[in-house]
């Protein structure tokens, strides 16, 4: 037959087996994927595959470090980048592992749900012929076997509540022919709650995965830096950076306005942060403006998301006059903190000079400046003695090339620093409120004020409630599946009238420590009932 193939069974025998067709292979593959062994291997692979994500720099977590890593490792950098090791959790191989794992999970729970449903409806299996092989075994002398069975059954039968049928014992009593004549045999069985919990846990995991997937297409988040006294209107263009899922509708953004009024920051004497509170005024469409605050652990709930306080710093306000005495630049410039003492770097780009080349300023702010043998440095984040050191660059800022520029970096390809008489790069110090001359008679700079800025994050993810619900369900299911007890209890007694001996036995997995106690309780209850 064409559909058969001969394979060797061992060294001496060959057998004809049906050839696996397309559907045969598919079935084989499905059976492999859904087997426990493969699920186990996939789990171990998942754990192993996640580790590089913590060891190597990752694009989504730290793009700058990742870029530096690629540049610093001429061979391995690009190789690891191409093979997905620098974005492990978005890489095809990581995705493949967890999708296979979920396929395995679904393929496992669907048949199990059916089997468990049938098991729930199937009658309890009768007591074994002999109880001798069970370790947990006791006997009790009773005056009436039937009454003893009734008492035990009454005790073990679940209370008539809706969950009793699931969590309680299921009991059956048989009159049957035993080895030594007719006997009464009682079986009590419970353990469904374990399987139900197990199924609930796995179904909830699928729910979590679906909620995550839903979140990734519907979410949006944006970052904005706002200087003290300024406002921000919620629109995609207003954010410094914005990302959204494929199904996000930009028109759905609620056009509220947020004004950053002031920042309350507290540091201890060593400069460690103690609290940050951004005082803001929120104006939602159709509502009166109201004052509120955003703290690190207390995001602000707005229509369509939450606003988080992610960072803060200083944005010194400068007025720059060019060599002709005209104001070429005026306004606050956010300086990014570089250390815990808020030593902050910033760049002022001055394209609109009356005559001559464009100006650029690279500056470092020291909020509490001191001078020691290593030179000037900041010793506290509070502005006790703010000093800015800067150098001036002239040339072409490169703003007209149509390429978006990083506002915190001066493009030095067409700019040259101004040197002092000794031939070094001229460094100028300025204190708050002062006006200093730029070197080479390029103009003057006035440092007007020192406002704060905050970095705010707006995030919205409509999947969060689903995620929470499925997480709680999975935790519940896990608890039930691990701590629900699975027990069988039997009582067997000769069906003779008069005093007789009831033999009780119980069986449960080895870790069930209170099994013996339960058997005791049942027999005690029987004894009490009989005496009464």
């Amino acid at each position, binding site marked *: 037959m064409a559909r058969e193939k001969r394979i060797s069974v061992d060294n001496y025998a060959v057998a004809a087996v049906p050839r696996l067709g397309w559907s045969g292979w598919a079935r084989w593959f499905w059976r492999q994927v859904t087997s*426990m062994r493969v699920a*186990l291997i996939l789990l171990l692979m998942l754990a192993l595959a996640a580790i590089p994500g913590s060891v190597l720099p990752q694009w989504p977590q730290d793009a700058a470090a990742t870029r530096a890593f690629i540049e610093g490792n001429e061979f391995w950098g690009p190789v690891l980048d191409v093979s997905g090791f620098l974005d492990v959790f978005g890489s095809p191989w990581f995705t493949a592992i967890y999708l296979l794992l979920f396929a395995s999970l679904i393929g496992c729970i669907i048949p199990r749900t059916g089997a468990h449903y049938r098991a729930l409806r199937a009658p309890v299996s009768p007591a074994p012929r002999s109880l001798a092989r069970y370790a947990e075994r006791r006997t009790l002398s009773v005056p009436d076997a039937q009454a003893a069975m009734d008492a035990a059954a009454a005790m073990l039968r679940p209370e008539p509540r809706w969950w009793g049928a699931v969590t309680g014992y299921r009991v059956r009593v048989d009159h049957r022919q035993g080895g030594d004549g007719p006997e009464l045999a009682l079986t009590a069985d419970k353990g469904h709650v374990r399987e139900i919990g197990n199924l609930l846990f796995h179904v909830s995991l699928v729910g979590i995965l679906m909620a995550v997937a839903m979140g990734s297409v519907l979410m949006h988040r944006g970052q904005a830096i706002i200087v003290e006294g300024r406002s921000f209107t919620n629109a995609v263009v207003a954010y410094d950076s914005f990302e959204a899922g494929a199904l996000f509708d930009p028109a759905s953004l609620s056009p509220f306005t947020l004004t950053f009024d002031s920042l309350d920051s507290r540091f201890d004497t060593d400069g460690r942060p103690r609290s940050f509170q951004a005082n803001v005024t929120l104006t939602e469409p159709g509502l009166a403006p109201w004052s509120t605050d955003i703290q690190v652990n207390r995001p602000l709930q707005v229509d369509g998301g939450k606003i988080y306080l992610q960072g803060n710093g200083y944005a010194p306000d400068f007025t720059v006059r060019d060599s002709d005495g005209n104001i070429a630049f005026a306004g606050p410039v956010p300086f990014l903190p570089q250390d815990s003492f808020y030593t902050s770097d910033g760049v002022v780009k001055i394209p609109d000079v009356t005559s001559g080349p464009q100006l650029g300023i690279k500056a470092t702010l020291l909020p509490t400046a001191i001078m020691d043998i290593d030179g000037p440095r900041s010793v506290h984040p509070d502005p006790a003695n703010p000093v800015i050191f800067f150098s001036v660059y002239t040339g072409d800022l490169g703003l007209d090339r149509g390429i978006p520029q990083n506002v915190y970096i001066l493009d030095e390809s067409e700019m040259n620093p101004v040197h002092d008489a000794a031939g070094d790069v001229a460094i100028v110090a300025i204190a708050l409120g002062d006006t200093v001359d730029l070197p080479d008679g390029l103009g003057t700079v006035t440092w007007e004020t020192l406002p704060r800025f905050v970095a705010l994050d707006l995030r919205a993810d409509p999947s969060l409630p689903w995620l929470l619900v499925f997480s709680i369900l999975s935790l519940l299911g896990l608890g039930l599946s691990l701590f629900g007890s699975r027990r069988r209890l039997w009582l067997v007694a000769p069906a003779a009238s008069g005093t007789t001996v009831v033999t009780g036995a119980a069986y449960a997995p080895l870790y069930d420590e209170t099994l013996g106690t339960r058997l005791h309780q049942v027999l005690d209850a029987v004894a009490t009932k009989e005496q009464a």
Partner: protein
Amino acid sequence: MNAQTLSVMALWAATTLYSIAMLAYAVRFSRMAEVQGATKRQSLVTAGAPTSPESGTVASQPQPPAPDRALGIARATMLVGALFHMLGVGARAVEAGHVPWSTMYEYTITGSLVTVLVFLGVQARRDIAYLGAGVSGLAAVSLGLALSVLYAASTGLPPALQSFWLIIHVSIAIIATGVFAVAFIATIAQLIRDRYESVSPRPEGRLARGAHSLPPAAALEALAFRLNAVGFVLWTFTVMAGAVWAEHVWGRYWGWDPKEVWSFVIWVIFAAYLHARTTQGWGGRRSAYLALVGFVALIMNFTVVNYVFQGLHTYAGP
């Protein structure tokens, strides 16, 4: 004496007492081995006597005279050590003015306390004195390391930690760690016993007699599983509570921060362990190895991840 001095002195006292307890437990263990060796030789003499078929699987061998004095010393020093330990952790909380688990030092002193308390709690219900040497040794080493290497004076909480989620998320993580630690010791005992049982004829020698005094490997596996199951549920809750807190403070519930990666890895390893237990050919020794790997990953998450990797959880670091 202020709270800081009191805390450090009480913790050093606890370290010393745990060390004594460990020695006493070890002495007791080796005496048990001697006694059992002796009864074994005795039973060889009486071998051949008819045994009741009814005795079945119920082990009804005569209880050997236990080396009670060493056990008494071990239990007493462990208990008093735990009291000093509680005093030390409590005084640290008073000194710091917040829950004592915001830095590595605080996490270690509280985590080792939980390990000891879990042991004492289980011990109250069933005899697990054979794990005493391991647990008290682990507690003494981690306390000693905490005091000598990790110690950092209390400096108050940074804004990111000023949340009631610190109480929930980290306390459950610590309890999970403590439970996993006792399970780890039980798993090691299981593997020792398993090795002893797998050799035929049963080996002689001091170590083998020690293994002989342990419960059967299947019983140890059951104990380790029970503890690991509790630990796993607690760890699941830790990860979920962490996600809720992360959503609250960082604006995203999951961002593959190194600590999150490793918490995930640990979760997956223990999930694999639970699956392995019920997989043909993976029960017993193989799944026990997985549990050990899981605990090693847990320790890695606490040490290597804190020291080596940069992440958002760095305030927990040194």
